[in-house]
């Protein structure tokens, strides 16, 4: 009888459809994130880096430029303490970004990094970065936001300048009812 066969094939096809739905919501985004992290697509830099002892390549100088941008209506003052610095690959470097909440309300911000050229993204390591946490500033408060980074000695030869950009987002409303300074999920960290 045909009815049994029709039910069988319908169940199979429904299961296929359901698996595509699960695939698109739960599997595609993590694959995409992993893919971006490996390839540096969209200038995504990795999460916290565990420093490994490496020899500093004194023969080579790489210029690292810093850019700070406010997303749309973000009212904070936000700038790097230095516009650029010259580093040797393998060297641990510190610098700070300066943020000031000049408004009259307490706010929470999240900085999202992006790096060009994309090819350099996987060779730029951050052992400490204010972008790993949300930043909360009281009204009128200002802060120095630390960044510690290492340019990998394996950085391809053609790359002499790296531009690291941070965009500051106002996430006050989004995280208003959460506890302070959550560490955002490193898996989904941009």
């Amino acid at each position: 009888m045909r009815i049994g066969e029709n039910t069988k094939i319908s169940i199979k096809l429904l299961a296929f459809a359901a698996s595509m739905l699960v695939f698109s919501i739960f599997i595609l985004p993590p694959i995409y994130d992993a893919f971006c992290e490996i390839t540096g697509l969209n200038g995504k830099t990795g999460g916290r880096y565990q420093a490994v002892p490496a020899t500093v390549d004194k023969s080579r100088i790489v210029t690292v430029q810093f850019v700070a941008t406010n997303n749309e209506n973000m009212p904070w003052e936000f700038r790097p303490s230095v516009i650029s610095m010259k580093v040797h690959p393998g060297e641990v470097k510190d610098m700070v970004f300066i943020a000031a909440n000049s408004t009259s309300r307490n706010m929470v911000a999240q900085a999202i990094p992006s790096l060009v050229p994309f090819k350099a993204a996987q060779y730029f390591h951050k052992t400490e970065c204010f972008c790993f946490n949300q930043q909360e500033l009281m009204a009128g408060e200002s802060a120095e936001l630390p960044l510690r980074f290492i340019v990998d000695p394996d950085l391809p030869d053609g790359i002499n300048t790296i531009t690291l950009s941070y965009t500051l987002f106002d996430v006050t409303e989004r995280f208003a009812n959460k506890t302070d300074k959550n560490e955002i999920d490193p898996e989904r960290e941009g």
Partner: protein
Amino acid sequence: MAHGPQPGLKRWLYTTNHKDIGSMYLWFSFAMFLLGGCMALVIRAELFEPGLQIVQPEFFNQMTTMHGLIMVFGAVMPAFVGLANWMLPMMIGAPDMALPRMNNWSFWILPFAFAMLASTLFMEGGAPNFGWTFYAPLSTEYAPPSVTFFIFAIHIMGASSIMGAINIIATILNMRAPGMTLMKMPLFVWTWLITAYLLIAVMPVLAGVVTMMLMDIHFGTSFFSAAGGGDPVLFQHVFWFFGHPEVYIMILPAFGIISAIIPTFARKPLFGYSSMVYATAAIAFLSFIVWAHHMFTVGMPIAGELFFMYATMLIAVPTGVKIFNWVSTMFRGSMTFETPMLFAIAFIILFAIGGFSGLMLAIAPADFQYHDTYFVVAHFHYVLVPGAIFSITAGVYYWLPKWTGNMYSEVMGKVHFWLAFIGLNVTFFPMHFVGLAGMPRRIPDYALQFADFNQISSIGAFLFGAAQIVFLFNVVRTVMGGKKASDEVWDNPEGLEWTVPSPAPYHTFSTPPVIR
């Protein structure tokens, strides 16, 4: 099995008959075609002159968005499902679709989905205004409140399409008459089988992407929000992973219709049947690995750009096989030019033009200039209007005598064809030029130098719109009466559907036919 339809409205509400449901799909799709067409005319009226005359930019954005959504999901897809409902069982010698009750359900949820979508026009904040591709964050952070209705409308349409596709696959695989082997199936059946698999593979992805939007908007996730660690570019990847197979969903059944019509009026069997089947399968496969050619400008590694460029160009090969097969079928045929044939020939010529502009767009370095200009608009209207719409129209003229038992007016059909053909080219051909000159799409105003071509486009659009009124009148007149059609209708056409009487009885092939 001799009982007929229920009387009155109940016939349409409760029906499980594939012919009734097919008719409802086709009428619904025509209603949506007119609605989406009116929106297109609002767009063209506004673009008749530079500056803002008729509508506000906000409303213009709603019109471009709703026009796209309604034409894709409301006009083209249901029309093909309607043709599938009517023709598949008759082509494979089956008494009905495999899952008739689900068939009823998959149709009847559609009017609700589109009522919901259309109702957003009257809501505070207006209808969706972010383009039919609804890129995040336009469709999440910056969307009007009505976006939630849009999301649920998409969910319902997706459910309808998936059910329709399951039904079609079950019908084709399980219900064929004895002796109807896979490689004996008419190409319309083949193309729909492959299309149905595409639908089941990608409609859930569309449902997934709107679900992620819903969560971002209402439940605080950050799939597409950079501030929370997500990525708006991810939206584009997921959307086009659905979107590219979707464009083949809208064209593969058209290939099947054209492959039925050309042999009939060329009075020769279809050239290269099996190559047509393999070409269809090849196109379906390639459609899954080319999605990022819609997003060359988002910033991709050079290897990615090259891969998607070459993979896209590869699609021209199976498509070319099809075009050459149709041309070879006509070569030295004893051709006549009835209305379905006119539409079919126009399909081949104009679809080839759209295919060539597609090849131009596939060239990654050149695409940076074409991206988001009217050149893209010209391209996809050249593949969708003569591709999907002309083939559906051709199919309706071709099978209408079988459905109604009456012959349509050939004179009116030809008037319809020439008005539509001229109107279409006058509308969309100039868009290539303004696009290459840099006119961006989805903008209600434009620089003065584009004024002439835009006026020509607008005149053509109203001509094309008028042609559809002729079509409607012709179809209604044929349904009401007219010259009786013979059982064969055409001159010795191929296919089981021509072996049943005209009009096709309410139940056909209650006993399976004998397949030679």
